[in-house]
C-alpha cells in the first residue's frame, strides 16, 4: 500500500514537469510511413501504436532522459533515448526502421492482459495482423482465422488444437474477446464472427490452450482476442470495394441453374481528430448470392469508435457496432448428386438477425508503473428464423463490467489483478425467459527470477449462476515459465485450467427438431479442462524462426447432445457425457528470403483426440493440419499463395447418417489460394486480385455442406 501511495504521489508530483514525445516512424529504404509500430517507454508499462501515417505521441512523460523502443515484425528493433526538459515543450522524434528477415521479439501480444513481447509469454500465441487480413480479402473474422496454424473451422465453430468439435451452434470452447472484453451471445453462448467489422480489425491474437485463470468461462481450448484499430492522428477517409464471382461447379450434375453467382462489398470509413476527441466512423455492406441454392446473404454494418483524452492521464474510449443481416438457410445438401441444393423442405428457410454491442473503456495512467482501466460492454443479439413452417425468435442481452490494474511495484514483478461482473438475460421461444450472471476476481504475478527466467503465477475465482441451474464456483490456477538461455532462444512451459459454464441454449432448449423432441436439462454442470504445454522458439541465422510445441489437454464433463429415454420414449437432450484427452505437437517455421522480400510460413499440427468414454476418436477433430503461406514483394507489386491441408475427419455423429443423404461423404481438405496486387502509395491506390480454391477442390468442412468452388475477387482500396 505504501508503494502504491508513493507511486500516486510521484505521478502527481511529476505532472507539472511532464512532457510529450511525438514523431513519425518510417521505412528506412522507401521512406513510407509504418503503421502498427509498437512504441514503448522503457522501464514503464506505457506504450502506443503508430497510426496509419506512422505517427505516434506519448504525453506526460516525466522530464529527464527517456528511452523509447520501436518494434514491429519484419523490421529491426530500435531503441532511442531523448532528453525531456521540464519546460513543457514536446520533443519530436522521427525514426526509420530497417527491414530484416525474421525477428521474434517484435511481435507484441496481450495474452496476459497487457502488451508484451511474444517471447515473454509462456503459452503458444498466433498473431494475424490487418495487412494479412486485407491481402486475403477476408470478409469475416472466421475467413481470416482459417489461415492460423493449429486452428480449423467446422462451419462457424472454431477448433484450436482439437479442443472443439461441432455442437450445432450451442456453446463454445473458445472464448472471443473484442479489445479484451468477452463477446459471446447470451442465448447460445457462441462466437459470432459476423458481428465485428473486419475492416476495423488491427490484429487477431489466438492464445492456444486453457486460459480461464485470466479470462474465465469458455477459455477452455483457447482465446481469440480481436483488437480494433487505434484512432489515427490525421483526418482520413478510406474506401474499400470488392467484387467477384463463384466459378461454375466442377460437375454438370451440381449445376443447379442458378447462373453466375456474385459477391460484392463496399466499406467506407472516416477517421478524424478534434483536439482531444478522436473518432472513427465505418459503414459497410456485403452482398453474397451464395454458390448454393437458398444460401444468399445481405449484411449491413455500422461502427463508431470515439476516444476522448479527458486529461493527460485519463482517456475514455467508446465503441458502438450494429449488424443487420438477412440470409437464406442451407443446413445440408439434398444428396451428393445435388450437393448445391438443399432438401425441398428447406427451400424457403430464412434467418434474420440484428446484433449490436456498445463497449466503453476508461484508462487511467496512475504512474509510469501503475495503470488502471475499467471496461463495460452491452451486447444485444436478436434473431428470428423461419424453418419449414415454424418460426423461432430469440433476444438476449449480455452486460459485462471489469476493472483491471497492472502494477510493477518493484523491479522484477508485474502484477495484473482485477474483478469482473456479468449479467445475461434471454427471452426466446426455444429457451424461455432466463436470467444469469456471475462475478470473478483474478490475480497474476509475472516474476523475473533471473535475467533469463520469468515465472508467471496466477489464479482466478469465478462464481456463476444461470436461472434454475445450480450455481457453481471455480478456482482456476495457472503457472508459466519462460527461459531464454541465449540470444534467439526461448523455452516455455505452462499449465492452465479452463472451464465453461453451460449456455441457456444447452440447459433450457425445448423444441422439436426433425420430429425429435428436444428437452431441457436443468442439471447440466460446467465443462473442465487441464492444459499442459512445453515449447521452444529458436531463430536460425537471422533468416529463420522455428517454433515447436508439445501439448496435452484433459477434458471432463464435455456437454454433448444425445438421445435419452424418458418415460419409455427416446428424446434429445444436452448432457455431460464425454471425457477426452487431446495430445499433440505443433511445428511452425517462418523463413525470410531475398533479404526479407519473400516470406515463407508453414505450420504443422498433429493431434491425437481420444474420447475416453468409449476409447474412440473424438468427433469432428482432424488429426493433421498443415498450413503453408508464401508471399513476396517486388517494388509496388506483391503476390502470395496459401495452402491448407486438413486430414479427413474420422468420426462424425453417427445419427446424422439417418438425416442427411451421403453424410459419410467427406475427404481430406487441400485448398490453395493465390493472389497478386499493386500498392500505388503516391495515388494512393491498392488493388488485390484473389483466386480462392484455385484448383477447384471439392470438400466439406461440415457433413452435407460442400465448400465454395473456385472464387475470383478483385479488391480496390483508396484513401482520401
Amino acid at each position, binding site marked *: 500500500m505504501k508503494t502504491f501511495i508513493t507511486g500516486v504521489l510521484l505521478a502527481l508530483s511529476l505532472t507539472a514537469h511532464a512532457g510529450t514525445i511525438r514523431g513519425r516512424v518510417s521505412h528506412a529504404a522507401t521512406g513510407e510511413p509504418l503503421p502498427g509500430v509498437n512504441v514503448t517507454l522503457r522501464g514503464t508499462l506505457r506504450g502506443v501504436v503508430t497510426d496509419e501515417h506512422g505517427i505516434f505521441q506519448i504525453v506526460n512523460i516525466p522530464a529527464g532522459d527517456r528511452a523509447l523502443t520501436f518494434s514491429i515484425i519484419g523490421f529491426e528493433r530500435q531503441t532511442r533515448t531523448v532528453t525531456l526538459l521540464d519546460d513543457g515543450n514536446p520533443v519530436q522524434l522521427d525514426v526509420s526502421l530497417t527491414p530484416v528477415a525474421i525477428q521474434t521479439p517484435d511481435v507484441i501480444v496481450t495474452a496476459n492482459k497487457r502488451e508484451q513481447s511474444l517471447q515473454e509469454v509462456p503459452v503458444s500465441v498466433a498473431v494475424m495482423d490487418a495487412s494479412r487480413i486485407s491481402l486475403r480479402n477476408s470478409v469475416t473474422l472466421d475467413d481470416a482465422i482459417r489461415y492460423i496454424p493449429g486452428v480449423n473451422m467446422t462451419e462457424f465453430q472454431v477448433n484450436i488444437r482439437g479442443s472443439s468439435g461441432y455442437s450445432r451452434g450451442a456453446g463454445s470452447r473458445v472464448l472471443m474477446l473484442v479489445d479484451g472484453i468477452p463477446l459471446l451471445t447470451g442465448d447460445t453462448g457462441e462466437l459470432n464472427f459476423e458481428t465485428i467489422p473486419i475492416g476495423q480489425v488491427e490484429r487477431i491474437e489466438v492464445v492456444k490452450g486453457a486460459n480461464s485463470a485470466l479470462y474465465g468461462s469458455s477459455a477452455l481450448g483457447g482465446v481469440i482476442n480481436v483488437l480494433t484499430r487505434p484512432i489515427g492522428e490525421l483526418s482520413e477517409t478510406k474506401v474499400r470495394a470488392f467484387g467477384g464471382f463463384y466459378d461454375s461447379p*466442377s*460437375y454438370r*450434375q*451440381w449445376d443447379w441453374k442458378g447462373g453466375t453467382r456474385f459477391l460484392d462489398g463496399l466499406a467506407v470509413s472516416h477517421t478524424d481528430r478534434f483536439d482531444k476527441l478522436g473518432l472513427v466512423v465505418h459503414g459497410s455492406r456485403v452482398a453474397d448470392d451464395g454458390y448454393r441454392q437458398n444460401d444468399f446473404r445481405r449484411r449491413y454494418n455500422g461502427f463508431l469508435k470515439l476516444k476522448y483524452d479527458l486529461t493527460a492521464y485519463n482517456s475514455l474510449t467508446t465503441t458502438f457496432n450494429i449488424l443487420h443481416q438477412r440470409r437464406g438457410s442451407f443446413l445440408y445438401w*439434398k444428396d*451428393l*448428386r445435388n*450437393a448445391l441444393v438443399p*432438401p*425441398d*423442405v428447406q427451400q424457403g428457410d430464412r434467418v434474420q438477425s440484428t446484433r449490436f454491442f456498445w463497449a466503453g473503456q476508461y484508462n487511467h495512467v496512475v504512474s509510469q508503473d501503475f495503470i488502471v482501466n475499467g471496461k463495460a460492454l452491452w451486447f444485444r443479439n436478436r434473431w428470428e428464423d423461419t424453418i419449414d413452417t415454424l418460426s423461432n425468435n430469440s433476444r438476449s442481452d449480455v452486460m459485462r463490467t471489469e476493472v483491471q490494474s497492472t502494477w510493477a511495484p518493484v523491479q522484477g514483478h508485474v502484477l495484473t489483478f482485477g474483478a469482473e461482473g456479468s449479467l445475461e438475460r434471454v427471452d426466446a421461444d426455444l429457451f424461455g425467459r432466463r436470467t444469469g450472471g456471475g462475478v470473478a476476481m483474478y490475480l497474476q504475478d509475472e516474476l523475473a527470477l533471473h535475467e533469463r527466467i520469468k515465472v508467471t503465477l496466477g489464479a482466478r475465482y469465478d462464481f456463476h449462476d444461470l436461472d434454475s441451474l445450480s450455481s457453481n464456483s471455480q478456482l482456476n490456477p495457472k503457472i508459466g515459465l519462460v527461459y531464454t538461455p541465449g540470444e534467439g532462444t526461448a523455452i516455455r512451459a505452462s499449465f492452465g485450467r479452463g472451464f465453461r459454464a453451460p449456455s441457456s441454449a444447452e440447459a433450457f432448449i425445448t423444441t422439436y427438431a*426433425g*420430429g*425429435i*423432441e428436444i428437452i431441457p436439462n436443468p442439471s447440466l454442470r460446467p465443462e473442465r479442462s487441464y492444459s499442459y504445454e512445453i515449447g521452444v522458439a529458436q531463430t*536460425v541465422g537471422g*533468416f*529463420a524462426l522455428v517454433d515447436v510445441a508439445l501439448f496435452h489437454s484433459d477434458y471432463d464433463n464435455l456437454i454433448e447432445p444425445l*438421445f435419452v429415454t424418458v418415460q*419409455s*420414449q*427416446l*428424446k434429445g437432450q444436452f448432457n455431460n457425457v464425454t471425457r477426452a484427452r487431446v495430445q499433440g505437437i505443433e511445428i511452425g*517455421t517462418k*523463413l525470410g*528470403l531475398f533479404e526479407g522480400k*519473400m516470406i*515463407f510460413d*508453414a505450420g504443422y499440427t498433429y493431434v491425437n483426440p481420444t474420447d475416453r468414454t468409449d476409447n474412440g476418436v473424438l468427433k469432428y477433430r482432424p488429426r493433421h493440419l498443415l498450413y*503453408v503461406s*508464401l508471399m513476396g514483394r517486388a517494388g509496388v507489386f506483391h503476390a502470395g*499463395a496459401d*495452402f491448407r*491441408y486438413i486430414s479427413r475427419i474420422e468420426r462424425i455423429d*453417427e*445419427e446424422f*447418417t*439417418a*438425416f*442427411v*443423404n451421403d*453424410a459419410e*461423404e*467427406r*475427404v481430406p481438405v*487441400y*485448398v*490453395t489460394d493465390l493472389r497478386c496486387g499493386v500498392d500505388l502509395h503516391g495515388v494512393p491506390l491498392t488493388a488485390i486480385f484473389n483466386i480462392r480454391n484455385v*484448383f*477447384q*477442390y*471439392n*470438400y*466439406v468442412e461440415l457433413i452435407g455442406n*460442400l465448400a465454395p468452388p473456385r472464387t475470383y475477387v478483385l479488391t480496390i482500396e483508396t484513401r482520401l
Partner: protein
Amino acid sequence: MRRLAYVLPILVLIVTGCDKGLEPKQVSATTGTFAGLITFHNWQVADSVYDMRLIAFRVFPPTNILEEVLQGRAIVYPPLGSTQLARRGDDSMVYELTVAPGTYPYVVIAQQYGPNILADWRPVGQYDLDTNYTIPSPVQVTAGAVTSGIDISVDFAHPPPPPFE
C-alpha cells in the same frame, strides 16, 4: 531450411492439382444397389401416417427400428428429414437404394404412426419370398451390381409381426 521454402510449395501444387476431391457420386467398388417395387394396400386415415421409410437392417432380429438406424446398424431410405417414401393413396412406387455390399436380413417398410419420431414406428411390409411372416427373406447385395426384384407389399390393415427383441 531455405530449400524447404522452394520444395514444399511445389509439392503442394502437385498434390492439390491432381486431386479433385468429392464427385457427384463416387464410383466405388465398395457399394452395391438393390431395387424393386413397393405396392400399398388399405391406406389408413391421414393422421396415423406421420411418416414412412424403407429400412434395411444389417442384423436380425433388431432391437428397435430407429435405434438401429441411429446406431448405424440399419439404413433408412429416404433419410429422415427429407420427403417421405410415398404419399397417402399411392398404389405403388419403384425404388433404388445404394448400400454397402453384404447381407441385409430384414428389409422393411416402416410407418411412423405417432408424433414421437424415435419411438412410434411399426413395420407395415417386409421383403419376404414366402407367406411365412415370422422370418423375412434376406437381401444379398453385391459390390458394383444391381440386385433387382426386391419387391415389397405393404398392407396397413395386415402388417407383419414386429420382430424386435
